[in-house]
């Protein structure tokens, strides 16, 4: 584990200086033992931790500093722009009154600049209940925004950074060395260039990030400052097919395998079930149509469903299920359905 060779490879991997051969070598070493695997994960976590470290704010009297700099801006006396014989020194010898005046001007400037310092004009894209929108970001990345969601970003896009509430599917353009980050509350998702889904509805108990392609780093900064001494920012790196669930109340991150086709069905506008147990099907339908389905998970666990449907409508899907299994699907209160009866072998 302390083999310096792999430590070096690991450093290269984390800092983005690894090439393909080295990466393969590192990965096969990682996979060769669980101790190596643990070391690998620990280093990733370590790297994530140091990355969360914000640059210390530097307190400095900018007005004073400017007053020092300003006289140096003019070229020295020898400059051709000043005709010979002209008496320059007086220019520098400002009276205290004029210094005061220029300071006052600076204060006015600072005030005028305040909105610019405070933050630029942000772009906000929002969707209603069943609405979806496709957003093209200035860096070429594409975002599909699911219903009841909002996406906010600075149109200048100096930093590849967006804020998300709700659910979105990202196809992030790969620009070397420039990470793309998505913040949803205190959960941050960082990537270079990949395809993945983020579900972060404020009313839901967890934030879920699922990766379709590439590598994604998800980190959680503990919410309450008083917890910070006891809780490390947690971060995980996700590979395709993996999903990070961030439990908002427990402030914990868990990684699981997820079926990406189910997670991203809303974006592909397609339902695909391949021998899927009915309770999972119900879960997918809940998610897809934004409804709740009451179903006995034990009773129906051996009812496999297979079908594929583009642009599905809720009524059609239910009609199909009823026909297949003789279910009774009742519509209760708004958007709550229950499944009962039926047969399956």
């Amino acid at each position, binding site marked *: 584990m*302390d083999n*310096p060779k792999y*430590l*070096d490879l*690991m*450093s*290269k991997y*984390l*800092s*983005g*200086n690894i090439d393909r051969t080295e990466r393969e070598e590192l990965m096969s070493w990682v996979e060769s033992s669980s101790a190596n695997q643990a070391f690998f*994960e*620990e*280093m990733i*976590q*370590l*790297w994530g*931790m*140091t*990355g969360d*470290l*914000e*640059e*210390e*704010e*530097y*307190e*400095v009297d*900018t007005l004073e*500093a*400017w007053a*020092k*700099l*300003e006289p*140096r*801006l003019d070229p020295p006396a020898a400059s051709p722009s000043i005709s010979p014989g002209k008496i320059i020194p007086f220019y520098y010898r400002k009276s205290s009154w004029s210094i005061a005046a220029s300071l006052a001007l*600076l204060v006015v*400037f*600072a005030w*005028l*600049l305040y*909105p*610019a*310092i405070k933050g*630029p*004009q942000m772009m906000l894209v929002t969707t209603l209940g069943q609405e979806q929108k496709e957003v093209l970001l200035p860096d070429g990345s594409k975002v599909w925004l699911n219903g009841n969601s909002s996406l906010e970003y600075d149109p*200048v896009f*100096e930093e590849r950074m967006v804020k998300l509430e709700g659910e979105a599917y990202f196809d992030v353009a790969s620009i070397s*060395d420039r990470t793309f980050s998505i913040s949803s509350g205190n959960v941050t998702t960082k990537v270079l260039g990949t395809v993945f889904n983020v579900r972060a509805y404020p009313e839901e108990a967890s934030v879920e990030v699922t990766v379709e392609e590439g590598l994604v780093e998800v980190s959680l900064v503990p919410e309450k400052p008083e917890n*910070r*001494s006891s*809780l*490390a*920012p*947690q971060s*995980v790196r996700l590979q395709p097919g993996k999903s990070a669930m961030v439990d908002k109340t427990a402030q*914990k*991150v*868990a*990684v699981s395998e997820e079926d990406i086709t189910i997670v991203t069905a809303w974006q592909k506008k397609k339902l695909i079930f391949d021998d899927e147990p009915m309770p999972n099907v119900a879960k997918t339908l809940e998610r897809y149509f934004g409804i709740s389905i009451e179903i006995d998970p034990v009773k129906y666990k051996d009812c496999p469903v297979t079908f594929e449907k583009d642009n599905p409508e809720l009524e059609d899907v239910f009609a199909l299920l009823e026909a297949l299994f003789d279910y009774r699907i009742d519509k209760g209160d708004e958007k709550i359905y229950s499944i009962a009866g039926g047969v399956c072998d």
Partner: protein
Amino acid sequence: MQEISQENILTRLKSNDKAALKDLFQLHHAGVCAAIFRIIKDRNTVEDLAQEVFLRFWQKRETINVSSSLQAYLRRMAVNEALGHLRKKKMFEEEINNDTLAGAAPGVEHQYLHGELEEHIKMAIDVLPPRCRTVFQLSRFEELSYREIAEQLNISIKTVENQMGKALKILRKELHHYLHFFL
């Protein structure tokens, strides 16, 4: 108030408008100082170097070509200025001899039992041997490639690799309490 756009500032600078530099200074002076401070811990030096950054920016205003953002550009200038300063002081060359001592300064761990995590991370980085720390910071925070770091610090790429490995080894040791929190 019109939003101050990057193009706007650059155009104004090119027509010798000092107020444009003033705008830029107001916006980015503290950030430039912070970037230098990360590398050089002496506040007087930091502020002198920050002045040089803006002065240099002003002097080359006519030829300046910013492809990314002004903020990123100034930041890069700030880092270069700091590294230039270190090179002048020959701090890296001198360090080579006693750099082989592995591990961080002893006894750091007990100093921060009661601090906050962020403080611990900061301290752990601060106690890295100076060259090792600079290499790590340039990679982690400035996102420079190994090659760029090697060029900036006048050292070989191999040395950059070694220093990075060493940095991570030390940080892992210093911060091991916080690792393994989940998974």
